[in-house]
């Protein structure tokens, strides 16, 4: 099984780190987001079956700049995170403006289940 490395970075270092791995020939695998108190973003890159993860924490107001200038296909992942979790990602190359999934409730994954049921009138 390949290696899995996790690195905690700061938001301002995101673009420099991504540029470094792009020059080394890594490919973007996935961008994951999980929410407890605040949002935790994880960017995963892979080369020769070795997985490298960058992680940092934000909240819904902090601006995160998009990496779609370096990896053009990151726009799908970033649009999904913006719509489901409400992260504030700027300068995505193709921005759907919260119409990718067209769900009636805003940012459903960032709310607790009980709030979601109240909103739907259960």
């Amino acid at each position, binding site marked *: 099984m390949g290696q899995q490395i996790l690195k905690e970075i700061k938001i301002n270092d995101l673009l420099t780190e991504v540029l470094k791995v792009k020059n080394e020939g890594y*490919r973007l*695998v*996935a961008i994951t987001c999980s929410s407890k108190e605040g949002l935790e973003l994880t960017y995963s890159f892979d080369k020769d079956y070795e997985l490298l993860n960058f992680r940092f924490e934000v909240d819904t107001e902090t601006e995160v700049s998009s990496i779609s200038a370096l990896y053009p296909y990151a726009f799908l992942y970033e649009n999904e995170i913006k719509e489901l979790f409400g992260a504030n990602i700027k300068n995505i190359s193709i921005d759907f403006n919260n*119409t990718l999934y067209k769900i009636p409730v805003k940012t459903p994954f960032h709310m607790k289940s009980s709030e979601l049921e109240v909103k739907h009138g259960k």
Partner: protein
Amino acid sequence: MGNRTIVPFGPQHPVLPEPIHLDLVLEDEIVVEAIPRIGYIHRGLEKLVEKKDYQQYTYVAERICGICSFMHGMGYCMAIENIMDVKVPERAEFLRTIWAELSRLHSHLLWLGLLADGFGFESLFMQSWKIREQVLDIFEETTGGRVIFSVCDIGGVRKDISFETLEKIKKILTDVENELEEAAKVFIGDTTVKLRTKGVGVLSKQLAFDLGAVGPMARASGIEMDLRSQGYAAYGKLDFKPIVDHGGDSYARTAVRIGEMFQAINLIRQCISLIPDGDIKVKVTGNPSGENFMRIEQPRGEVVYYAKANGTKYLDRVRVRTPTFANVPALLETLKGCSLADVPILILTIDPCISCTER
């Protein structure tokens, strides 16, 4: 400068197995640009972790998709087993590999039928699905279901296959192999098939790498990437090489998938001859705590499972990144410059499984 029109390639289309919407910008019948829109069958399955505990979630994870259902269950169970440091017995690993390779066989046969239907060759579509019925009968005999198996569990598998059934599977696979050779001759050699697929939707090796293509789509452009060579489950003990083609067009993708089918039959025969005796399940107690990324090779490409647990019986987060999600940008790139009549074939060559993509 011709006239630009926008044609919606709607969610309902006879050639699509699942709904996806594309807005095609056409200039006199040549496609200039394509804008995707997905989200028609979004079920919010990742939010169900808050209500189902980590053992009940195995059944939810299996039902993400109907075609690749066993691999989803296996990937989820392996991610949780890595978090809890559970060692699965060896017989269970071989059984999982046998079912996984049979899944790959039935998925590629389904895709071959859909491709033939896409360019109008209906009798070939019927023949491919007739061969597929024999594989589904093997599933029903060993696991109880034709499409959703409910046989993979945290700590092993739930049903065993007896020695007589394994010999029967070998005999059925010989029949399947003979019939498959007949069908493969038509796909590779027939002139009408070649006219519709050669030179259509060419993706060069550099573009495939830059756009993040995975699975047979990347292997048909020359990138040698197959996660089975990492050796998860019983693949470390089997002998095989990834199948790579250098054409980059739809004909090459068809050839890669047909090659993978024959390789799957070969791998199942190796498994049946090497399978050891022993337990099939290990008892698992307690709650998981920690996180893990697990990557396996589905019929459509590389799938990533991320599970995060915090010590209670409800997981924090489960994320599934499916291969069709990674292949959509490559699809949008191959659509540029093709004519309108080739659009259905190109969408089918990435093997779209939209219910996996949207969970």
